[in-house]
């Protein structure tokens, strides 16, 4: 892993992109990393485009700006591809992780012929099958852990089990579904390597 990994999340209000960025920060913290997890607060309303950020490092992090040249971008809602410049500043050796069922050709076209690595996951299908409702953030969280390799997948899975048990102490019925969502997502990420 590089000294400092910077991740930018694009989602829509209510899809849990902010929560996913905080969960990722939590998971990385539990492996001993220095972390930042923060959203860019705007007019908060359901469905509006939102951005959230993570910095993860082995060293203390002092920078307190938004992230303009991320190593990885996560897109939680592929309808954003049409009107948000999601690959802006994305590093050449980085990757974009998208929740979508679209194919590589269509995605590259939507991304203005972006030629870096694209990773896709059908987070809707996974979420509906495992959790029973559309919560794309859990599978997307697993996808970015797999793609960015910020931690061992098994350690991540174990950590998330503990964290879900804590987070959903009052809703134990959703714990199994979320864990299954992570297991499925770790297996189902599709990689389209850079050109």
């Amino acid at each position, binding site marked *: 892993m590089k000294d400092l990994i910077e991740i930018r999340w694009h989602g829509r209000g209510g899809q849990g992109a902010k929560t996913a960025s*905080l969960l990722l*920060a*939590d998971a990385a*913290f539990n492996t001993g990393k*220095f*972390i*930042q*997890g*923060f*959203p860019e*607060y705007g007019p908060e309303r359901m469905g509006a485009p939102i951005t959230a950020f993570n910095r993860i490092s082995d060293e*203390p*992090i*002092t*920078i*307190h*700006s*938004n992230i*303009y040249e991320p190593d990885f971008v996560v897109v939680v809602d592929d309808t954003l591809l049409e009107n948000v410049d999601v690959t802006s500043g994305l590093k050449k050796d980085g990757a974009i992780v998208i929740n979508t069922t679209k194919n590589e050709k269509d995605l590259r076209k939507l991304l203005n012929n972006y030629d870096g690595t694209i990773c896709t996951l059908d987070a809707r299908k996974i979420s509906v099958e495992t959790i029973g409702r559309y919560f794309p953030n859990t599978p997307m969280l697993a996808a970015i852990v797999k793609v960015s390799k910020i931690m061992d997948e098994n350690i991540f899975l174990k950590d998330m089990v503990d964290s879900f048990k804590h987070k959903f102490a009052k809703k134990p019925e959703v714990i199994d579904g979320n864990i299954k969502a992570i297991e499925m997502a770790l297996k189902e990420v599709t990689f389209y390597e850079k050109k």
Partner: protein
Amino acid sequence: MKERLSGNEAVATAMKQINPDVVAAFPITPSTEIPQYFSTFVNNGTVDTEFIPVESEHSTMSACIGAEAAGCRAMTATSSNGVSLMWEMIYIASSLRLPIVMTVVNRAVSGPLNIHNDHSDSMGCRDSGWIQLYSETNQEAYDNMLMANRIAEHPDVKLPVMICMDGFITSHAIENIELESDEKVKKFVGEYKPKDYLLNSKKPISVGPLDLQSYLFEHKKQQSVAMVNAQKVIIEVAEEFKKTFGREYGFFENYKMKDAEIAIVVLNSTAGTAKAVVDDLRKKGIKAGLIKIRVFRPFPASQLAKDLRNCKAVAILDKADGLNAAGGPVFTEVTSALYSNNVKDVKAVSYIYGIGGRDVKTDDIKKVYQDLAKIKDQSTVRNPYRHLGVREE
């Protein structure tokens, strides 16, 4: 204990460990989470604080004043227009020498309406007689909270303290933090035992009566002396804090200042961003440094002048525009400190930046150092009152 918390969680945690007698609050973004978290501690019995949910910030400060005058330890938190609505009572709190501790989660004061970070709220009340401590990180906000009561309640001081941190940037970002144990914190902060207070029936006093030509001036002089005394107390408390918890604090932090030719003076979270830029410039052999002011009130004028005297050019960054046609509030105070301490050959320039939450990137800070590299060799500073990262058209 290693944890990861937002700035608001860190402050609420400190308040929980201190367990004050009274917390009064009215919600306002981005400080709302502090009383919100704290009220859960009240609800589940973790603290035995009297929590007073008031109907406005004017009442928040009034309730804190009443509680402190009665002999209690009182705390609150607010932001932006919450500070504005408290205005009358902010001055009364300090004039009555009531050691209230208030977190100000810095946010732009309206208008037009903006919920994001700048320092117009706390800078607006810089002359209200409150001690002001600024925090770069969640850790510093937490540590400042642990030191605040010791400073405020010291018999030579007896002044209220404002702990400032950047709205959203610090208040809502999750970062690593080192928390101390409840026992250690309780022991360090100690109990509040005021000498005179309203509920002491053995020694009745009155608080805040009419104070006309024959006395007000003397009382104001005493406030002024208290602010001078606070300098000594702030350093004593910081030294004990270092012995107890290991982390070091002073009036300000010098970052790579020893041989610095060009330097930035800045408050709060931007200091961290600027440190990363200083590190880059140092790798290129550029003698860049940074001073991060922690204690803005009392203002460490002679100490700043001493540590800036060997620089060739200094940029003072203000996240509040003084609108005085001459430069931001930190700039005017730093330059006046230089002049009054007979430091006259350091070139100084004011940058207003980050207003209303405008993001401050490393590139913005780099530009300031590039400007300073030119300024240091010029005979005079052309246009010393500048705005950084603003669209001009």
